[in-house]
């Protein structure tokens, strides 16, 4: 193994690769990296591909199956490794909007997500400032209590919330003493934004606490001496400097709400766009009592994913640096 000599080169491509890998270990890491990358790409992209295949396949062909064709390879008959569409019907992407006002469902989801994100960012910023930058007795306990909320199953809240949002009087438990008379919120954005904000708040508070806690005190002091209040310093200095954290919290909240179904399917008493039923409600309404338009559901899913795709591509640098720097620094 003393010299690298052309005549010494071992035979066979594998042997040669091994030989070079020993001389240059970087190659091994590179190979491992590509292997891992390909694995993750396949597992994440395959479902999306499968949706596309289903979307362009006419609905009547879907039940029949046969998405894996047999092909002749060197005289043997083998299954093709990927499913292929049975027929070609791109009109499904148009039918999606003809059958039901799918754009309205998307708009509902978008509006709910934006409102919730704004509420969560503002309130979680205030909480993050307090938890991250101020010393007070009971801070850790309070923080734990808030985090504990995120471990409650959302189903635990559904019944009481539905009761309240239906406009019923709320009594003190086990008595007939009325606590308050709520206004009816079912089928309005309020009945969804309120529980979403509460449920997704703890994670955002946690992220922002971590970030705001890392901004040096001197910068806040400087801002206050220069002429801001504490709140002004939070929004003018601390928040901009925590941009990766704010972006992370915002995107996570936005995506969670955009994809939410459980609460919205109950708070919107029927899956109609006018009842503020969201995206998922729309997708499911391609299924009626007698028919199920799998191709339209697939096409609608693809259309629904697109805005998220754009958002994540645009914000991904921020999100990644936000997730990792928060993890590294604490």
């Amino acid at each position: 193994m003393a010299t690298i000599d052309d005549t010494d080169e071992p035979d066979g491509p594998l042997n040669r690769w091994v030989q070079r890998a020993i001389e240059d270990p970087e190659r091994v890491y590179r190979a491992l990296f590509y292997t891992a990358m390909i694995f993750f790409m396949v597992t994440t992209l395959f479902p999306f591909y499968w949706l596309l295949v289903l979307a362009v396949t006419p609905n009547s062909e879907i039940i029949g199956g046969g998405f894996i064709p047999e092909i002749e390879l060197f005289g043997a008959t083998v299954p093709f490794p990927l499913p292929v569409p049975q027929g070609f019907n791109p009109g499904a992407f148009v039918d999606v909007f003809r059958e039901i006002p799918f754009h309205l469902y998307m708009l509902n989801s978008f509006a709910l997500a934006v409102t919730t994100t704004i509420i969560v960012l503002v309130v979680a910023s205030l909480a993050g400032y307090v938890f991250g930058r101020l010393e007070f007795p009971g801070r850790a306990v309070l923080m734990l209590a808030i985090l504990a909320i995120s471990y409650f199953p959302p189903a635990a809240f559904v019944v009481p919330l539905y009761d309240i949002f239906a406009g019923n009087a709320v009594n003190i438990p086990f008595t007939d003493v009325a606590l308050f008379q709520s206004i009816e919120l079912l089928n309005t954005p309020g009945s969804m934004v309120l529980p979403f904000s509460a449920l997704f708040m703890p994670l955002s508070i946690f992220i922002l606490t971590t970030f705001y806690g890392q901004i040096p005190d001197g910068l806040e002091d400087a801002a206050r001496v220069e002429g801001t209040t504490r709140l002004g310093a939070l929004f003018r200095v601390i928040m901009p400097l925590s941009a990766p954290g704010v972006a992370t919290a915002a995107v996570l909240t936005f995506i969670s709400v955009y994809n939410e179904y459980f609460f919205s399917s109950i708070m919107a008493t029927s899956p109609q766009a006018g009842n503020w039923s969201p995206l998922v409600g729309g997708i499911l309404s391609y299924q009626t009592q007698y028919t199920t338009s799998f191709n339209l559901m697939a096409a609608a899913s693809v259309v629904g994913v697109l805005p998220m795709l754009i958002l994540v591509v645009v914000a991904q640098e921020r999100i990644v640096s936000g997730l990792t720097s928060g993890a590294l620094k604490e």
Partner: protein
Amino acid sequence: MASLKLEHVTKRYEDVTAVDDMNLDIEDGEFVCLVGPSGCGKSTTMETIAGLTIPTEGKVFIGDRDVTNLPPKDRGIAMVFQNIALFPHMDVYDNISFGLRLRDFPKEEIDRRVERAADIVQLEGMLERMPDEMSGGQRQRVAIARAIVREPDVFLMDEPLANLDAKLRVHMRTELQRLHKELDTTIIYVTHDQAEAMTMSDRIAVLDTGELQQIDPPLVCYNEPTNLFVAGFIGSPSMNFVNGSVGADAIETPNFSIEFDPARVDGVAPGDDVTVGVRPEDVYPVPEADDVSHPTAAIQARSDVLEPMGDEIFAYLLLGDGETSMSQEAATDDQLLMSIEPDSDLQEDETVSVVLDRRKIHLFDDTTGDAIAHGIVDVTGDGSAGTRAESDD
């Protein structure tokens, strides 16, 4: 521009008193240094003036206004921070104009002030840069410019030069003095570096354990320290301290005695224990002692370590039986630090005779640490020796 007054300001945290009954009266246009070791309360005092901390007791006045409970933004102050604290997400122009923009100044006025400030601190042509593209000195100047544009009543500077390298620090020191001359604003300057305090300020306020020890012009602090702490803190290297007791006609220390007439100084009587302080430059080797008008008797010592500084040599002398003492304590009875001419031919481990200048010997009360006298001979002929130390309370 305004005067500044602290009245009985006390700041207590749960179990610590950071500032204890601080009274400061700073005149309009004065440059005052708050100086003291780490944890002496100087930064807390500064924060109290800035409004970043609300005092537990006492009042803060800027000009005639009681600002004790006002938020920082309404106090008419500007501050330069130790860690510089430029906003990293803003360029130099936005950093400097931050305070003005918050106060809705017209655009032309902001431009005019930023330009003038940039001119004063020599930052022309750098207004577009981001803080992380600048050197430490440049950032420091941006921070100072940010304070200047506000045209504050009082400038607060919290160790602004601490993070700069030695050469830049000396340079910035001069620039700050020039700035003070130019702006003629009241400046409060916090530092733990007594050299900075000595060179820059009109008056030095020496703090220790949250209490004001002395506030006087630099040379008064140097020549007439009110107590042991100030004597040891001001001056580098520090003053020599030796324990002694007053006899009928001399002060006896473990290794030598100093001719002294107790009747000439108020506050000491034979039998009292005192601490004798003498600065390194007031110790003379015998051959050079001819100029000293009131020398002590020669003291035998052995030279230990020599530290040539270029313009002078610091010689550590061992007294008595001359065992090397590794103690860092200021009051080691067996050690004496002497500053001598750089051309001296003194070698290490030589026997030397030295004398002290009795006009420059300080006496401190052994129990309270307060100064009793500065100079222990009668030089004025009015019957009292040297300068009578003032009681500090």
